[in-house]
């Protein structure tokens, strides 16, 4: 319930996964572009958003296939050189989605894969976060997933506010809501 209003959590669950229907479903033809009447037939392969797939798979109505970003090919790539893989382009909510999928699919190795990925990428994020300069948004950031971006920003912003304080001391500032307007 604590995450009910959480924007990020809502968006994670908007990601799409491929599923197989174990049962027929009436009146929901819109889910399956290939369906001829208003129903989804048993055995149909349908892309569903995570929020729907979660509930249906718990009730054993569908089976969720692991998306390619957690597949063998990506795993190999990540193992070879974790820091250089562009995970953002594969899945911006890599970790959050992975956690939810580990629960749904019961894939025993998925959790371990997430953890080793995080461990492999952590040091690079740390170093880049603490050394990034005041203005530039490094190219490096385009490789990061949502969770990694938050981690990176947490480090970088602390460095920035500290630098700012050292240079000019405490200063009153205008409300951030007005920030976008010209001065």
């Amino acid at each position, binding site marked *: 319930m604590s995450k*009910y*209003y*959480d*924007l*990020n959590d*809502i*968006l994670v669950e*908007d990601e799409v996964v491929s599923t197989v*229907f174990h*049962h*027929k*479903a*009436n*009146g*929901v033809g*819109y*889910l399956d572009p290939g369906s001829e009447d208003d*129903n*989804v037939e048993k055995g149909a392969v349908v892309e569903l*958003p995570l*929020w*729907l797939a979660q*509930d*249906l798979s718990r*009730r*054993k*109505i569908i089976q969720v296939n692991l998306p390619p970003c957690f597949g063998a090919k990506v795993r190999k790539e990540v193992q070879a050189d974790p820091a250089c893989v562009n995970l953002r382009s594969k899945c911006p909510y890599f970790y959050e989605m992975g956690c939810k999928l580990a629960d749904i699919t019961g894939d025993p190795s998925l959790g371990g894969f997430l953890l080793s990925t995080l461990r492999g990428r952590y040091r690079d994020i740390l170093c880049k976060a603490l050394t990034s300069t005041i203005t530039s948004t490094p190219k490096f950031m385009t490789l990061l997933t949502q969770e990694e971006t938050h981690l990176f920003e947490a480090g970088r912003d602390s460095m920035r506010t500290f630098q700012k304080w050292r240079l*000019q001391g*405490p*200063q*009153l*500032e*205008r*409300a*951030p*809501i*007005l*920030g*976008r*307007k010209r*001065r």
Partner: protein
Amino acid sequence: MYGRSGAELVRELTFDDHQIRRFNHDLFNKVLGEIQEHYYQVSKIMTLLQEENPSGQIMHVDGNYSGALIHHQSLLRNKRCLLSYLYNRAQRIQRLRWQLGAVLPEDVRDLLHPSEKEFLKSYSDILGSYMTTVDLDLTVDATPPKDPYIKIRVLQHIGEVLLGDQTTSLSRNSIHFMKRTEAEPLISQGLVEEFNG
């Protein structure tokens, strides 16, 4: 359908952390419409189920059961998106009260939904009456105070202002020495800036 519009509405809030955008009536109403549609579909299937099986007991998973479930879940999902949109906006609106004071600039006010304006007013009244009771302006000294007086530079022409017991004319680019607590709201509103020269 699919909860796509709902997620789009929510995504709008993640583009910026602090800003308030114009209330998205079109998308909001579209999601409301989807909820209506899902509700209608659920009712339709439920009536069917009732006719087939008057006892109301669901014995096994069939097409109707799955269909009703999907519509029901979609309805709940859309509801969550709408509530989250409203809730997170309300949080930001509360923050506005602390940063900009009880009276919002016209252009910021225009971004709010009529009921959000009402919410802001009620919130502002509660805060105001509390601050009157404890006889303390809680919105100043948001950063720790230093000297009680600071130097400021005027960014926009403001005109005659009552400072302490005398009126001062604040015209653009002029520099003044004034009480920190009096300067703070003006700085927060972006009318003047702290000047360290």
